[in-house]
């Protein structure tokens, strides 16, 4: 560990370290991955792992949480994204390869990826 030489360096380091305690801090975005038996069988764990990796690489301020079966098992893996006061958007049949685009368009640019959306809660 090289010594911290200034307040700026300390702040840069803190920005990185904040990732470590992300689960304990308030963020504006919650990503909910359906992880009931149906979700896991459909590959939800891999999807969630890609979300975690992508969010860490891009240092995006978001939580990833899991939930149980919502009943729409045929559309699993289901991923919900809720940004502060906005609507809760649900994506269905999410594949790990779809995750970068969802993050890019939805989280960074604020446009939902309409073709993959299966529903939304206002």
């Amino acid at each position: 560990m090289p010594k911290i030489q200034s307040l700026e360096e300390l702040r840069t380091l803190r920005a990185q370290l904040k990732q470590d305690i992300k689960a304990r801090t308030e963020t504006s975005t919650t990503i909910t991955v359906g992880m009931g038996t149906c979700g896991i069988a459909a590959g939800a764990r891999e999807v969630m792992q890609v979300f975690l990796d992508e969010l860490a690489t891009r240092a995006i301020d978001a939580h990833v949480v899991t939930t149980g079966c919502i009943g729409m098992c045929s559309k699993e893996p289901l991923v919900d994204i809720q940004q502060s006061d906005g609507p809760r958007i649900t994506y269905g049949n999410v594949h790990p390869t779809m995750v970068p685009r969802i993050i890019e368009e939805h989280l960074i640019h604020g446009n939902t990826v309409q073709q993959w959306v299966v529903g939304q809660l206002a």
Partner: protein
Amino acid sequence: MAELYRADVLVSCLHGRSPELVSALKQELDRRGLAGEVKVVETGCRGFCTMGPVLTIQPNGIFYTDVQLADVPEIVEETLVKGRAVQRLLYKEPATRKVIPNYDAIPFYSKQMRIVLRNCGMIDPQSIDEYIAVGGYEALGKVLSSMTPEQVIAEVQKSGLRGRGGAGFATGRKWEHTRKAAGEVKYVIANGDEGDPGAFMDRALMEGDPYAVLEGLTIGGFAVGTQQGYIYVRDEYPLAVQNLRSAIDRAHEYGLLGSDVLGSGFDFDIRIVRGAGAFVCGESSALMQSLEGKVGEPRAKHVHATDRGLWDRPSCLNNVETWANIPPIMNKGGEWFASIGTERSKGTKAFCLVGKVRNPGLIEVPMGITLREIVDDIGGGPPKGREIKAVQTGGPSGGCIPASMLDLPVDYESLTEAGSMMGSGGMIVMDDRTCMVDIARYFIDFLKDESCGKCSTCREGIKRMLEILTNISAGLGKPGDIEVLESLAKTVQLASLCGLGKSAPNPVLSTLHYFREEYEKHIAEQFCPAGVCRALIAYQVVAEKCKGCGLCIKACPQEGISGTARQPHAIDQVKCIQCGACFEVCRLDAIQVVPRSAVTVGSNGGNGYKPVREVVR
């Protein structure tokens, strides 16, 4: 690159079965292939000690209490895999049995205000990374890059922060004196020699957030102009020593201690000195003697430590809690701190709430909160069927405040006026089954052992007070004892050198002041109304109330209760040792405490009791 987890499991505290719990959790997560998604963090004390170990699962904020090893698989399966709360482990409000899933909605926490204990239970105390991530060392960075020592001192003065060790001297003024004192070499010292029975605020802080103490001390070092700090910790706190040591090592690696701190050119180092656990070493001058390797005895203070303290150099000594208040003050400003609390007591204070309350534990409250709010709202009130009789604050040298004064605001002045003191933060709640003579005797007995013996008034006076109190509780009190106690107490107070002797009579004086009639009952009526002093009481069955259930027969260790089912039982007063086991188990209030003189035993009509003069060493 930092690793992102979807959930953190925070395990508190660092004692009890938590270590096993942590390894069991890690094993189970590993077995389920969740180790890469869920992080287990060992944190410091959350204060909710009766409910420990407690588990907080973030980001959901689910709060589990009293977690057993056997609960681990279910927690992993239900909460971490399926995202559901395990209902039976959630906190239930004792009165309504209503489930409260999130910890910030629990009354124990919602009335508190955590400034000093902000990180305790929230971060891994061994990880400097987590401390930095939650904003740690920002204050030090700000101070070193943009403030002069004078500005730092001015900010502390503006905050109105006063010493948290008990005496309440203005921290800013102490810093200023030390800065202005003549001499090249100076010292800053953190007092972690917490000795009050039942108090563990400082331990929780040093164990749970050691970096906060280091950061505060480093800022203090910069402000008073020194390169050397000491932390004096008693050796009975091995985990505090271990966590502080590892914190100092990490801080060195990160350039936050040692030469050229944060590239500012300021050099500062901290050493840990372990004390052997003498109560008197919590007193500032005795502590410095002990730091020098001498016998820990206080010295006269006509020369202040800020002029000539450790090794006769100007020294600034503050309690660890005081030091840990410094980083938030530097971050948010003195005015912010001064906006909390009362006119002359600012900020918050950590207390160890123990005794006869439902939720004993470690709490932090804003100054000016009433004792009633602490005892009833945070502490959950007395156990069922009991009544609060008094609250003792300030440790052995504090005093007892009667229940009639529970609306007293908690600040330095009000407590002192009521005959007690702030002290370092012990708070013992007593109910109607507590004898005030016995309490005074307990504290005086403690102080008898802890008096260093330098001043004869303290050494001898405390011993004589103990003899009188012991006699009173043994039924050997005589008229005039109270007056002798009073005169002894005043002499000890007046003629002793240090805070220990000056405050030692407080337990006697405050109980005499508020509960004098209880002393008088012990002497004149030979009766202890609380049923504590065994020599003065007897237990008796109230025949009208007794349904003959036999519970007391089973409970009696002396096999001294007889009777047939559904007929009133009777206690054999010769066999009875006044342990109170029958009294505790009886559900019908059919056993009562009466004066020893009220019962007759055997054919000779005596009461079976021969007073034995207790020998006081």
